[in-house]
Each structure stands twice: as C-alpha cells, then as structure tokens.
C-alpha cells in the first residue's frame, strides 16, 4: 500500500500544517512517510502545494503527475493547479472558498466558473466531493478550512479517530477550534 496526497491552497491557509498532520498520523501508525513542500514566499499569499506520501517504503518526496490518490484543495481555484497530479480514479476534496488571485482582484480576469465540472472534464474518473466551507464559516466563525477538509479526508482513511485527534492536539495545543473544525468535517458534513 502506498498513498499519495496533494494539498493545494493559498499562503496562510494552513496547507503545510494539513500535510504535517497527515504525516504525523501515518508515522504513528507505523508507516514510512515523506512529505515535501516549498515554502519560500508562501507567507505572501502565493499558491502553495504540499505533498505527503505514506506506505511500506517511500522513495520520492514529490508526487508525479497522474498518480495522487487524493487532492485536497483549500481554495476552489487551487484545485485546478493540483488536478494534474491526481490519478484516474483519485478522490478530490474541494473547498468552495474563494480568494481572488491578483488578476481577478484587479479586474483583469474573471474568477473561473464551474470548477468542479472543469475538474471532471480533465480527469473524468475522479470522485469529487465539494465541501460547503462557506456555510461552515457562517455558522461557526473561527473554524479553520484546512482542519475541516482534513476531517473529510480522514473519512477515507483507515486510521482510528484517536490518531487524528492526538496529532491535531499535538500541533494546535491551544486551539480548540482546530479540533472542532476537524470533527465538523469528520462527523457532521454530509458527503
């Protein structure tokens, strides 16, 4: 078994902490893990992509095109940047949250429409689940998008809930909201 997951989003959304938690859970489950992201200028609101792979023995820390089992997109448009990595029958967990990139904010271009359809057109075999992030944020201000989508992702994995909760507690020692956001995705949201 070898699972490759790509997380995409915008600097500041917690892309890197999402893969950190996935990596930590897999490691505690006794698997070999590698994860890779490029930080550099991520804090300035640029696009961020992070890779995490786990299984018996992992070599490459980066994921090849058309091979990822999962794509988690914390921002809707960023799913388009990550879809090339996803394998034929991969799973996409898609946020409906939008942050306009500069060309959209300046009015030069329009924010792309029907992103889910575009994803299905590029990779017809995928299963795409759209997470209702905007509703969650309205009902629960302060909840985090990355942990909510991680909760949805966790439902596709075979680890016990305690492993996830331990990793989240370890990472966000002070924040109750991180755990609540995770559980909202893990238990409440309908897929």
């Amino acid at each position, binding site marked *: 078994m070898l699972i490759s997951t790509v997380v995409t989003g*915008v*600097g500041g959304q917690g892309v890197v902490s999402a893969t*950190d938690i996935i*990596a*930590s859970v897999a*490691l505690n489950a006794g698997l*070999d*893990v*590698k*994860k*890779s*992201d*490029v*930080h*550099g*200028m*991520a*804090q*300035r*609101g*640029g*696009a961020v992509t992070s890779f995490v792979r786990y299984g018996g023995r*992992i*070599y*490459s*820390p*980066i994921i*090849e*095109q058309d091979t990822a089992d999962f794509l988690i997109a914390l921002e809707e*448009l*960023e799913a*388009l*940047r990550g*879809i*090339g990595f996803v394998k034929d029958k991969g799973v996409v967990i898609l946020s409906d949250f939008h942050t*306009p*990139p*500069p*060309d*959209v*904010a*300046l*009015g030069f*271009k*329009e924010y*792309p429409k029907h992103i889910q359809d*575009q994803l299905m057109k*590029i990779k017809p075999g995928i299963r795409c689940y759209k997470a209702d992030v905007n509703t969650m944020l309205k009902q629960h201000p302060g909840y985090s998008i990355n942990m909510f989508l991680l909760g949805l992702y966790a439902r596709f994995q075979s680890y016990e809930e305690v492993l996830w909760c331990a990793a989240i507690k370890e990472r966000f020692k002070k924040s109750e909201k991180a755990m609540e956001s995770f559980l909202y995705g893990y238990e409440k949201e309908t897929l």
Partner: protein
Amino acid sequence: MLFSGNEAIARGSYEAGCRFATGYPGTPSTEILENIAQYKSIYANWAVNEKVALETASGACLAGARSIVTMKHVGLNVASDPFMTLAYTGTGAGLVVVSADDPGIHSSQNEQDNRWYALMAKIPMLEPSDSEEARLFTKKAFEISEAFDLPVLLRVTTRISHSKTVVFPEEPAVVKKAAYPEKQINKYVMVPANARRARLALEDKLQRLAEFSELFSLNKIEQGSTDYGIITSGVSYQYVKEAMPDAHILKLALTNPLPLNLIKAFVERFKKILIVEELDPYLEMQIRHISAGIHGKDFIPSIAELTPEKVREGIKAFAGDVRSPVVLHDESAVDVIRRPPILCPGCPHRGLFYQLSKQRSFIAGDIGCYTLAYDEPLKAVHTCLDMGAGIGQAMGIETVMPRGGKKPVAVIGDSTFLHSGMTALLNVVYHKSNILVVILDNRTTAMTGAQANPLSGTDLYGNPSPDISLEQIVKALGIHWVKTIDPYKTKLVEKTIKEAVAFEGPAVLITKAPCVLLPEFREKRQKPYVVKTDLCTGCTICLNIDCPSVWWEPRDVKAEGRTRAKGIAYIDPVSCTGCGLCADVCAFDAIVRAEE
C-alpha cells in the same frame, strides 16, 4: 521521528558536539540555524552576511570549537573569498559549510550548482539524499573536516531541506572544549611564501582524501537486475529508486573528491551507464572519459528540478537507446490563473512604491519582499540582481546617463543594506553620485520569515541587542541629505520623495515601520476600511496600490444608474489591516473606516 532536512542538519550538528553556528537567512537554508538555537550546547547567531559568518566560524574553529555555517547557494558566492583560502590554511576544529541550493528557482534569483565550489576550492563535499542522511552526513562532515584539517561542504537542495522524512536521532558526542588559540603563524598567515607551501600540502591532503573516498562506507552500490548501471547522488537517488527500483545503482555520498577506482570498477561491469544528477553535468564531466558507454545530460535535463517522471523518461530513453531530446514538463495540466506572492495587506512598503512609481525614475531594486513591487500594477522595481546590487546599478546609470535625466533611485531593505549595501553607498559618496537611495527599514529580514538583524533590537534567541542607528551609519558614510519618515504618512512620503529627487547630490531616505509579520505590527493593526458604494465611481485608483485586500467587484451598472464604470471597489474585511493607504489615494472620499 519526522524531521525536515534542515531540522536533521541541526540535530546532526548537536550530535557531533558542534559549539558554534552562524549564517545568514536564505531559502531553503534558514530553518537550520533556527533549529540549532534549540540546542543549549550550541551558541548560534545570525551574521550580517555569509562572508562574515564563515570568517567568524573560522575564528571559533581556531579556538577549538566545532562550527557550522549555513547559507543558500548564492550566499556561498558572498562567502567564497574565505572559502577558497580556508582549504589552504585548514580549520583547526571541524568546520562544516552548508550550501542549500535551489534547483527550479523556487525562491532565488538563479539555480547555480554549488558542487563546482567544492571542486574549485579543493574541499570535500557530502550530498545527503534524505533527512536521516542529512543528520548522519553532518556528523561525518565534522569527522572528515578534523581528520583532514579542511572545511567540508555539506550540499543540500530545496527537496532535502524542506522535505520531512524519518530520522533516528542519537546521543550527542563528547568533544573537547574551546581554548585560547595557539599561534601557528606559518599555517594561518597566507602570505605567498606560506600559501605556496600550503598549496603543496593541500595537494597531499587531496591525494589522501581520494584514497579515503575509495573506501568511504557511505558511497554505496545497490545490486539490481538491469543490464545497465546508474550513478547518482543526493535527491536524484530517490527519483531513480522511484522510477526504476531494480536498477544497479552506485550512490555517491562523498562527491568531492570522487572515488574514481570504485566508479571505474562499477562502470566496467555494464555495457552502458547513465549518470542521473540534477542541474549541471558535475559528475559526468569528471567521469565521462572513463568509458564511451557513459551517458548523462543527453537523457537527463540540466535545467530545473528533476522529478521522478523526468528521471523515468530519461532512463527509458537511455535503456531503449532512443536519442530523443528530453522535453521539459509543463507542470500544470490546465492553464490556471497565476497566483504569485504579493506584498502583504498593511505592508509598510506599499505606499512608498505607489509614490515612487509616480516619479518615472529608474528604480534599481534588490533582494527582499520589496522585489515584489516589480509586477503589475506598481511596476516600481526595475532590477533585481544580487544582495546590495541596486545601489551600484543606480550609481552606474547616473555616472553615464545624459544630463537632465530623472535622478536614478535604488531601493534596498534594512537587512540587505547591512549585508552588502554599506560599501556601495560609500562608493556613491566618494564619487558624488547624484542618486536617491531608499532604505526600507522594517526592522527584520522579512522575506525569509522575519529573522532578526542588527536593527531588530534582538538576536536569534530574542534577547535584546544594542541600539544601532541606521541614520548614524548613513551619515558616517558621508551622506548629508538623510531623512527618516513614517511610510504610512502618504502626503509626507510624496513630499519627501520630491525633495530628495530635487536635491543635487546623493540622498538617503529611510522609511521606518515594522513588518506586518512582527508582533509590533499587531499594535498598529486597526479596524478595517469599507467602500461607500454610493460614492465609489469605479475609477480603480485604489486598485493601483496593489493591496490584496482591495478587490474589483463587477456590478450591473445600468441597474444602479451609473454611467462610468462596470464595477466598484470592495475591501475584504478579514485581511484588511486598516493601514488606510486606499483611503488616502481615493479622490472621492468613498473609502472610510468601518464602524463598530
């Protein structure tokens, strides 16, 4: 445990009994020193630049303390002067120089391959391929350094530094303490007579190192079942294993000097050999002469990062003897709207660049966040070459430009100015060059994630450091026209730039306000601004300040009875820091502070 390569190098230094660590921040190397700071047995500090860092570490080694110096690839250009001659003098205690290269140019100005530095300086080099090796090779590097009395180059890349892989930490070694140095004049004073002797001694060391390299246990052969062999090192090894797990592999850990006999013996076993290495044909140029069957860059790209698929395609073509040119991958499957990094909401640099862009001067830039002002809509940075380059470039333009041209401007951050700008400014004063230098003093090294510098008032540990006055430094260099202003005061910024440009002679304008990443900024953060939709005419002037919080919102103009524009401005209340620049530039008083 899961460690990044940088965390693993920090751990390896601790385990090796390293006592002193220094360097200058630079992606992807920065986190090494930040992590070393957690180990109480090592004293760490940020140096003003890489050259000073390496020289300081050399002193610590003279006094018997194992030391490590960290930098990004281009940092070694700055430190190359001491680096070249340290091979002649030797180091005393173990000295490890970490060069974190950036193939693919994720966060740099070039993708130079620093393995050549090891060859050129005649310094041993180790290349780890994951975090566990980064830890282990760091320890080995200290051992080799002391065994041969030479600095050792530990060469990593972004994918090693910023990937997390499993590490098995060990206990630290007990090493001897630092002592007041003995004077060994013939060894450490590189006057020609001593340097000539040292050069001969270095040749002898290289000979012994070459023999050591042949038997070095971390150079490994992995038996496979292919009819060809692969020679590789660093992260490329992981891509080879991913692409072709059954290949015969010679994995090199020590890549200077190369174990030529080991390589020959490996090469002779196969009809053909493929060298898989990222960037330049460094291994290939040294070993291709061994046999006609050796291939490398004819199948593996020499530009950008390698990936498992590039390596797989290269190996396939090589194994099938297809001589097709290797195609560079377009990484994205679809054409996606770009999302580049931009100056943060509330960034103190924004207003300055907005006003500068109205001057129509040539603006020589430098290395830092502020380089981001090069792009639409500001387009207020017109060069970016290397640390401190902008001041020299502006001076060069002024020296030869026709009379009556706009006064050239150089913009440089506080950390970059202290790193490499001071000497250039002295040259400006010396030759009476009529340029304006703007020092963007945000009290930190922002681009790499807010590391302390001499103007921050704190050191690497957050302890207070002496007050250093930027204005006094500038005056001491001979600048008479110098003003320090608050960059959030839009009218003052505009007026002062005009004054500085009008002044005949070198002028320095310092804009002083904390970076938004710093805790001090939180005190400045105020209630967000909102757009009064009835007053906004959609003129887009507020979009020209390039703030990520100000968006264009298309509207149905006919329904709203407007005639002039197809939309209005919108301010994102979550990210807006309330700096007020958008309100300052609005000509229609349509932007106001939000009420409770």
